[in-house]
């Protein structure tokens, strides 16, 4: 991925927030300082159970590497009144890191 392309993508982060695709948040790695950042919060429905079907929202947190570098497991992301703990990385590219989070 070229640096110019990465720069263009990163320039879109404020736009994502402006149109409501991303939210203001804080990111705190275990033992680290709190960083103000932008995140996207998505929900992936998962079903469990064999007799009854219990569907629950699996929380997916997208973080922008330009703002926080490489996120780590156990970091806490706070979005408004909601707090998420990063549990498992599912996507990681030059721009973003997407994590399944526990709430």
């Amino acid at each position, binding site marked *: 991925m070229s640096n110019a392309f990465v720069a263009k993508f990163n320039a879109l982060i404020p736009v994502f927030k402006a149109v409501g695709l991303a939210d203001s948040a804080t990111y705190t790695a275990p033992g680290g300082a709190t960083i103000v950042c932008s995140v996207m919060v998505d929900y992936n429905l998962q079903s469990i159970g064999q007799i*009854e079907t219990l569907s629950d929202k699996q929380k997916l947190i997208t973080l922008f590497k330009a703002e926080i570098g490489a996120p780590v497991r156990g970091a806490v992301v706070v979005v408004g009144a909601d707090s998420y703990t990063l549990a498992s990385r599912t996507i990681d590219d030059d721009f973003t890191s997407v994590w399944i989070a526990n709430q």
Partner: protein
Amino acid sequence: MSDAPGWSILQIVADRLAAISVANGYYTAAGAHIDTERVALDEADTFPRIALAEETMTTLAQTTAAINSAMVLCAEGYIPVGVDDAEYQAHRLKADITRALGRVKSGDFEGIENVRVTQFEVKGDRPTLRSPEGVAFIVVQVRVTVTFAEYIPPATG
């Protein structure tokens, strides 16, 4: 006509599961919500809760007067979990269901017309079903086998 034998047995077992409460010495209050019909659940429902359903029904033997059957019932428990207590909660709910079912006796079914339960035992797998990461619930299962005879009354018509 009275209810079907399998359904009547299942309802009595459900009634025994309803005893699961903290006040009765159990870990959870799962007895407050026992489902015997299959429904779809989500986070807006009340938990913990238990669903009870027939898993298999097998004919063991037939005589001129009765059919002997073995019915496997599965009690499936659902409980919300936090970031670091899923296994802990699973063991507590599984223990509650196991204890409640372990207290059921063959004699508890004496009121069912034309049915005699000969054996009721907690038997078979008692798994904890693995939840996808990030899902805030865990599911456990406990199975029982009910062996019973259904007496066949003469046809009336």
